[in-house]
């Protein structure tokens, strides 16, 4: 399936873009991360969370095709 992935903060500095489409044939979040790690090896050293449909998800969560975002540590306020 075709996924739209958003990047923020220091994650977007590594990917060098704020968003992109990726063709994904796996099932769960950790498989998507493997795809991204192979594309952007510097991501491996970064602290981030994954949101799907604007909710934080863990690695075993099924990818539903909704909007995915990679979120570095929050630092509002």
């Amino acid at each position, binding site marked *: 399936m075709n996924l739209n992935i*958003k990047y*923020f*903060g*220091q994650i977007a500095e590594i990917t060098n873009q704020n968003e992109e489409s990726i063709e994904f044939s796996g099932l769960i979040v950790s498989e998507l991360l493997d795809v991204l790690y192979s594309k952007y090896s510097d991501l491996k050293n970064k602290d981030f969370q994954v*949101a799907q449909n*604007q909710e934080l998800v863990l690695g075993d969560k099924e990818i539903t095709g909704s909007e995915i*975002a990679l*979120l*570095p*540590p*929050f*630092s*509002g*306020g």
Partner: protein
Amino acid sequence: MNNKKPKNVFKEGAITSEFIGNSIYKHQTKTSIGAHNIFLGQVRADIVDGKTVSVIEYTAYEDMANNKFHEIRESAFEKFDLTCMHIYHSLGKVNAGEICLFVFVSSPRRKIVFEALEYIVEAIKADVPVFGKEIFEDETHQWKQNT
């Protein structure tokens, strides 16, 4: 008006003292209020390895952030007997000394506002996807970490 639709909490640039004063003024018609409590986050000119932060540039996952602000708002109204609650957060550049977060709660009684304000501010810091880029005077930067 659909109360369930998240409001946009974000404002471009710094939150001015005039805006805050005016917001206080607007509450003077609400005569059931006995206590207001206001939190303001101000950008610090922190010194890191001899370099001074001059600006924080805020970005956010705006849709998710507004949803989270909305959830925090709903949960605060459920937990605490609040008359009003307002949250504003800056996006874009905010200079050292300027205000980037304004949280305003009002209630008939004071004990409630203390509890509610701290709850809301801690929830904002923990749950809302906002990212602060601390820009030094020499244009280099580091990413802000909340503690």
